[in-house]
């Protein structure tokens, strides 16, 4: 399982999100990079065809290789990033962690929940996954669990709602 990091509370066995989310993440990352490369390609192609002035070759090469390395690193880190996402239901609050280099652990008390949202785009749906989003009265809360299996998402929503009702504390 997820090994414990410095900021993780002691004695927490993180619940990990579904492995299929790695595939989803690969797909979305691919799309992201395709768009990035398409945008970068515009001036280059215009330069080669002579519509624009051409940039010096060394700038083109270094720029492209930096971008390429970055993309490779991004892809290589996808599985680890997904495996770094975890959540854990405590008695009074829900803990969510994410991040490899920049790590974040957020604690959302059930009593503070204003609503629990479940959403899923077309790719997520194809893999039977969804994103659970928790909202409190503070916009800063930013607590989402991406890549949860649908049934688990529904269970989480019901569970959180029920607990929230029992502990509702509004503002």
């Amino acid at each position, binding site marked *: 399982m997820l090994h414990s990091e*410095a*900021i993780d*509370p002691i004695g927490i066995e993180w619940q990990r999100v579904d492995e299929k989310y790695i595939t989803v993440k690969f797909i*979305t990352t691919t799309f992201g990079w395709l768009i990035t490369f398409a945008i970068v390609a515009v001036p280059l192609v215009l330069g080669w065809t002579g519509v624009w002035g051409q940039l010096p070759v060394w700038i083109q090469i270094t720029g492209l290789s930096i971008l390429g390395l970055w993309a490779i690193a991004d892809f290589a880190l996808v599985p680890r990033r997904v495996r770094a996402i975890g959540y854990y239901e405590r008695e*009074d*609050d829900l803990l969510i962690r994410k991040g490899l*280099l*920049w*790590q*974040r*652990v*957020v*604690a*959302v*008390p*059930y*009593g*503070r*929940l*204003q*609503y*629990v*949202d*479940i*959403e*899923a*785009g*077309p*790719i*997520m*749906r194809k893999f039977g996954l*969804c*994103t659970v989003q928790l909202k*409190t*009265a*503070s*916009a*800063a*809360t*930013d*607590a989402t669990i991406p890549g949860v299996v*649908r049934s688990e*998402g*529904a269970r989480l*929503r*019901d569970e*959180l*709602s*029920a607990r*929230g*009702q029992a*502990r*509702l*504390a*509004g*503002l």
Partner: protein
Amino acid sequence: MTQQSPFPHEPEDPAQLGQRENDDAVVEPSETGEEPDAGESDKWFDETWTKVHPLSPLVRGWVTIVAIPVAFFSYNWQMWTDIWRTWRSGELADNLQANPTPYLLGGGAFLVLALLIFVGFTLSWWFTRYKITEEHVMVKSGIFIRQHRQARIDRVQAVDLRQPLLARIAKLAELRFEVAEGDGTAATLAFLRKHEAEDLRAEIMDRAAGESETPGPGAAPDAERGVSEVSTQAGEYADAGAAEPAYGVRIAPPEGTADQTTQGQAPQEAAPAAGSPSPDREILRVPVGRLIGSVLFGGGTLVFLGLLIAWGIFMGVMIIGGALFTDDTMSEITGVNIPVLVPILIAAAFSYYNQISSGWKFTATMTKAGLRLRYGLLETNTQTVPPGRVQALQIQQGLLWRPFGWYRVQVTVAGYGLDARSTLLPVGKQVDVMQLTAEMFPDLKVDNPEELFTEGLRGRGTRLGFTEVPSRARIFDPLVRRRRGFFATPSALMLRDGWTTRRLSMVPHERIQSASLEQGPLARKAKIATLNIHIPAGPITARAKNQDIELIKDLFEQEAGYAATARRLADRNQWMKPEELHEFEKNVAEVVEKLESDQLEDTRSN
């Protein structure tokens, strides 16, 4: 990857959480286009709706009336002087007789314009109506695009009464009801007669405070005393001159003649203890001299001076350069560059005016309904902030204020957002700050609050239990290292920060919505982390940056625990409805037990 949801939101489902906060607590702007209220009735409003004062559109739209002619006249200034001259010479009259068409057209256009404005104003007045029901304040407005806003009265966070200059002359006032989460979308009643507005405010505030006109559970006042030890807000409130919060208080007709009659003096017939009305207490006022001084020595002046110096240097370089390398005279160069100063000067004037206006004759009075702030130069504002609605408080001191010992106090109240209204005190001495904090913030529950406060405001290092950024992490915060820290009292979290501009932010534990702990790769090496405390949007960011990992993890655990439980205790105050109260009482006992056992564990483990 977000749009379609396989699990629709199901707002009808009573188990769904959104119900309470989402559905009717919030102000709901619903634009129904030209279809009036499709559901219940075919009329947009019936006779139960009240119209606002007929002068309202004029008061609100006077700028249009003034601006159109002014723009028209000044734009065509040359033409008008020409006409004046021709009229004087008698040429105009001849011309008019010879060829009247353009003059008639012009006059007609002017009349049509005036008529249009008049009709617009009348229609907008006719279509703006409000209605106060048992539970809601509702406002409908709009001629073509209709709007219906409603605010649940028991969710009202604060009520403001605003009087722009013209409204002041016409003795009218605007009422704003601020509701949680309603960032910038409060229900606004503009305009009512001033005394009407004041009565309405008094009534709404009382009802928002849970003092319903139907008698509540008879045991309520006893219960109040019973939990007052754990219930900081209620205790605070009783101290604040509210006597015993009593259910079953009737709102008496206002008496007296002064303009502060309406609220504080509603006699409390049912009040068991006091019997006599609790008078309004003036807590502080800001002297004009100090206000002007504070603005002159404020942050704006620093920026302005910086710009001026930059401009001076630039000019110097230009002049010397010009003298050395060209034959241009000085006036030519300065002539080019002085216009640059104009927008800066205008901006500075505006900024100064705003600051002075929002602090002019600033008085803070503690009334039954909360802290009443009055201020304003040309337009007067009266806002009422109930102590129980303050989510966080921040005391701040700019660099130039230090020699004078001045501070500014700001609060986060849900719905105020980043508004200037969140300023509780534009400038004041430490005594004023302490007094205000004592009224508006729960007791810190320490033996040496004053000392602690001073330490938080001006201190550095680890005295009195404050933390600092550990010296191994010096590189992260070379300057602010010894100021940046926190201290957790039993009731609130104090966060100290700022090297030039000193800040002390305080959040009651029970107001915390959620908390997050963050750490970057370098911070991991240095064994530090940052704690973010999430509170509703406002001027205050509660964050303990770069603190020792062990300390901050403990704090994280502690705050998460508090956020989950302690809040329920402090919620117990007169701002609740009777049935909420009942539900609440049930929970309290169990939570108190749990907290106590937690504390026992803590003391054992230490």
